[in-house]
């Protein structure tokens, strides 16, 4: 698996989870309190994303921000990956020397708290609020990770090219979180993008979890999606070729995350 794919997963599949984290977790919320900041992450000749912190909320964006306060440039994707893996890495800081305190004090708190919910004790918490939070994290990571893999995994480039253009809506019934994974035409080529909790005008295909409990069990790996589809606990409809391709990218994303 290439370092570029992993870096893209971190930027588009993991970094967005910070938005949900600061809404749910008090220590994370405190870490960004009173901050007004845009942090740009970018890999040279590779993926870029940014986090915007304002009034106790955080917003993730793909690509480059026009006016970041801090710009972290990673010479290689491997350098970014090591940072996300918790190693002491010094990216090139091209802007924002006066705002570095947040990077050395606030950001590690966010990183630790996210790790707590993704891989630590927080992952096993149960109850309506925990279920909803874990499903939000899982759904968002899945959609962003699928887009990252589809855009950057060279071994799946043919599959990405062969995928029909269109939008796959993934939602949790009856009124749970939802998001999309879509292939769009761009500059004579194509680009895969993920959205989360945005309005969806038309979905070419739909994948539905029958309930929050089903979604939690699938995301935790306690219920196989194959079985859930077979039993009707998950439902798929619409443009089957789009769902088939999405399934390939999801499988690759899951294996990459499982190997970390």
């Amino acid at each position: 698996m290439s370092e570029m794919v992993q870096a893209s997963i971190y930027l588009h599949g993991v970094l967005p989870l910070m938005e949900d984290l600061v809404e749910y977790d008090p220590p994370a919320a405190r870490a960004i309190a009173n901050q007004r900041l845009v942090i740009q992450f970018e890999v040279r000749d590779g993926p870029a994303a940014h986090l915007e912190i304002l009034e106790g909320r955080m917003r993730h964006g793909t690509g480059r921000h026009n006016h970041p306060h801090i710009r972290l440039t990673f010479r290689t994707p491997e350098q970014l990956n090591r940072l996300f893996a918790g190693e002491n890495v010094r990216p090139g800081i091209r802007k924002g020397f006066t705002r570095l305190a947040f990077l050395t004090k606030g950001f590690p708190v966010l990183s630790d708290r996210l790790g707590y919910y993704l891989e630590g004790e927080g992952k096993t918490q149960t109850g309506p609020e925990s279920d909803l939070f874990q499903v939000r994290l899982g759904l968002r990571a899945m959609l962003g990770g699928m887009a990252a893999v589809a855009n950057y995994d060279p071994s799946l480039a043919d599959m990405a090219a062969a995928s029909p253009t269109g939008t796959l809506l993934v939602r949790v019934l009856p009124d749970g979180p939802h998001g999309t994974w879509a292939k769009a035409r761009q500059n004579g080529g194509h680009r895969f993008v993920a959205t989360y909790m945005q309005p969806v005008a038309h979905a070419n295909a739909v994948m539905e979890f029958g309930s929050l409990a089903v979604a939690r069990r699938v995301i935790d790996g306690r219920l196989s999606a194959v079985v859930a589809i077979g039993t009707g606990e998950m439902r798929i409809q619409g443009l089957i070729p789009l769902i088939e391709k999405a399934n390939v990218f999801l499988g690759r994303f899951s294996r990459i995350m499982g190997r970390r």
Partner: protein
Amino acid sequence: MADITSQSRSYQKSIDLFVRAAQVIPEGIYGHKNPAFLLPGACPYYAARAEGGHYWDVDGNEYVDFLCSYGPIILGHNHPEVEEAAARQAADGLCFNHPGAAMVQLAERLVALIPGMDWAVMAKNGSDVTTWAVRVAREHTGRALVVMVRGAYHGAHAWCSAYPGGVLPEERAGVLQIGWNRLDELERLVQEHRGEVAGVILTPYHHPTCSAQLMPADSFWPGVRALCDREGMVLILDDIRAGFRLGMQGSLPLIGVQPDLICHAKAMANGHPIAVALGSEALRAAAEAVFLSGTFWFTPVAMVAALTTLRILEQTDAVAHMARLGTRLGEGMQEGARAHGLRVTVSGPPALPYMTFDDDPDLYHMQVFCREMIARGVFLHPHHNWFICAAHTDADVDYALETAETAFELTRRELGG
């Protein structure tokens, strides 16, 4: 048909089996029979028995079978003459140290039946023979590349699989792709890779999943043949899906040119597992050089079943009957849709029709329509072409069209026109 309509359908035994299967079988049901490719939760997953043009699932629900096991059933399930011949052979033994006489008889029969073909080899599944045919083309020409059509299905092997799992880039590197009917793309590819293309493998017409079937343009097959002749490339006809449903010479009359290699499987032994590759004399030396074998590839039961099936097809009006019923079904579907303000297109040869809703690129209408048909005992696949068999009757088609009246109306109500 009253029995079918009165049934209250449950798929619970199918679902229970599937849950058990998922514990011990990857994906529960793998490949093209996976429920996700059908209508999960709204169709059976497991079959119990079949007779003629009908089958019963493990929950006891009966269906008019317009999928025919994805093609192999051509005379009807459990055909008495075929099964009697197969049983006689089975009584003599199933698997020997040597081939049986049936292998020679079947090769002779096929060579006599299909013009331009001088020899035949036998295997079990379509993938076995398409893959082998590609290797024969490479051996014959000493070239590496082969051209196929985007979205065409030639089997599950690495060189042509639509799925990347476990496939090395090197295994796909020898395959170039063109669009269906795109002779210009083929000419350009051959120009770009002059002297490197071993052959072209094509289905007689384009039958992708999830979209309308496309017949060949008048100039396509003659153009491909001419290009193969000019450039010394081998032309392979993958006639596995359509095959003898179109006639005793398979799709040869449809394509109007002579291929160098032809692959058959599916509907040649009425459900018994067998695949064949046939070739011209010019390819015999290459065929002898490409090792071909399989433990069960020489078992005679399926060969006897194939001989019997071919005889019945030839001696009866089965082919014309399937075409007539398929035409009735297709025309009736179009009329039924129109009556409910819906527009559909029925594509492909009449014996292998597929219907698509004209304003439904995402297949939502098709899925609701097929769900309602299946719920009323007419098994129509929403994503794969359908099959007519010789055991289907006018009453089966009548029932399907009556049911379609309801299904079209329910589709319109649920999704609009």
